[in-house]
């Protein structure tokens, strides 16, 4: 059996350790390496993947409810807009900033920002309506510069830059995995045409089958964006999303 014991130093090594410790302290007193960010006066430069305040772009939203479904904290509720479409609202009292909603959004309508210092006075204010999510929130910017930490090998250095860091991140919307909607059991179709109504891209069409005198639905796999709206709405639950 191997026993682990404290390392034993002789007096020479001990004195050397003491001298090194004192020398390091003296060196830091003369030329210290401060790592403190003077927060309101300067900000830390966060990476673009920083999980901060969430912005919403209604132009890209296809009302698929994916963000609302995936939200583990149940912070996203869909709300009906005047146009009849459903858009997300976000309760920051519940949000845990996991950004699953952003990852799951097929159209890239939700996007992250580097804003992390939004404060509210009441719980009601934390419930953010769709309209409030479109523009970035008003924050007081006192910063005159930003800092970056640079790690080279085992040392850490602080780089200070003058000027304000742009907190809005411009990222191209993710393409995701291309999906397409297909009907797996066309025999059960009752031709309610709901899929055609909900389809945003007009990929679903119908035609009268002359032989049997029934309505046959068809999905054009070229124009289908794979948003999954028809899959969700299908009254017979016979549509599936598959990889293109």
């Amino acid at each position, binding site marked *: 059996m191997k026993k682990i014991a404290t390392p034993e130093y002789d007096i020479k090594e001990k004195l050397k350790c003491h001298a090194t410790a004192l020398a390091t*302290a003296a060196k830091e007193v003369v030329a210290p390496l401060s790592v403190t960010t003077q927060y309101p006066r300067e900000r830390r430069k966060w990476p673009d993947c920083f999980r901060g305040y969430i912005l919403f772009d209604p132009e890209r939203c296809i009302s698929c409810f994916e963000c609302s479904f995936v939200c583990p904290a149940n912070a996203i509720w869909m709300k009906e807009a005047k146009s009849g479409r459903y858009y997300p609202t976000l309760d920051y009292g519940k949000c845990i900033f996991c950004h699953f909603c952003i990852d799951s959004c097929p159209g890239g309508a939700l996007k992250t920002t580097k804003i992390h210092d939004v404060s509210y006075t009441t719980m009601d204010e934390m419930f953010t309506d769709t309209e409030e999510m479109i523009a970035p929130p008003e924050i007081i910017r006192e910063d005159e510069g930003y800092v970056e930490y640079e790690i080279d090998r085992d040392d850490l250095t602080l780089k200070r830059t003058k000027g304000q860091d742009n907190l809005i991140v411009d990222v191209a919307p993710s393409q995701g995995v291309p999906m397409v909607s297909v009907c797996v059991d066309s025999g059960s179709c009752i031709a309610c045409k709901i899929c055609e109504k909900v389809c945003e891209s007009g990929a679903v069409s119908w035609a009268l089958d002359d032989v049997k005198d029934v309505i046959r639905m068809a999905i054009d796999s070229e124009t289908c964006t794979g948003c999954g709206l028809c899959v969700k709405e299908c009254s017979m639950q016979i549509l599936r999303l598959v990889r293109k």
Partner: protein
Amino acid sequence: MLGLPVINNLIALLLWESFFVLIIMPGFAVLGTLLLILPWIERKMVGRMQWRVGPREISPRTRGIIQLLADSLRFLFQEVIIHKDAHKRYFLQFPFLYFIPVLLPLLFINAGTAGSPLVPIVSDYGLQLMVALICLMPVFILGLGWASNNRFAFIGTVREAFLYFAYEIPFIVAVFAMVVMYGTSNSVGVVDAQAGGLWGIILNPIAALTFFIAALMATARLPFDIPEADQEVSFGPFVEFSGIAFGLAYVMGYEKMYVLSALMTMLFLGGGSGPMIPGLGEVSYLIWFVLKTLIVMIVVVNLRGVYPRYRLDQGMKIGWNAMLILALVAVAWSLVIGAII
């Protein structure tokens, strides 16, 4: 001056040499100023060592130099809470009584140089009296802890008592080594013996090292922060104190450090010896003395940025083992070197 006879007498009294040394420099006035600045220096320098900023938000332009002034204002206006279980009389008296052993050693400090002593009271037993008064300080801390009647205060007090015996004997033996070396215990004679740049730290570095470590233990500074360890016993004997009483206890540690640093300057760093500053006369010795004391104090306070805290048993082992041996070696060294000189 202004036709008032009393003012003339007062100024004459203030400028009377032994009174000036006691009251102004290096006595109470300088002590008070240092008490206001030293914690700031400590916090700033330790902050730099630990990659922090230190006090800053109060008066950022002066880098937070008035932080302790703000703290003391807070202490002044805070309520002094005397809890039900405390021994009320001693609880209130001991912080004030503590002043006596802390400030009295200043009476025997010689801030002058060889040939021109600057000492309030010349006594052939100056060193013995100072050591006796310094050794009296822990008794008051024990009293504080006992009067608090609190479990943390009790643990801290017992730790203080353990450490007290551990450092006291090497401390006294180290001073004794220097008495043997100089052949006198008069504070004037001690400084005279270090004339010509042959300081005590060169004559007997072992005694200097022992004295320094004992001073660290006596002032409960890191790495011997054992009785007051905030993380373990939350300031030990002083845990129940609040308001001005805590302020006194807080300041008392620094006063004790000042006295011990002044004693170290006198014993090992040649007192106030140094090049004359033109136009200042004997005051230049006082300035050198205060500067040396300040450097010793800065070294003492900055060790908290370097060392972690020893366990109680490790502290005791250092006191009874390494330091006692070192102190005895220092006495032998003094005997040998004294015989050669």
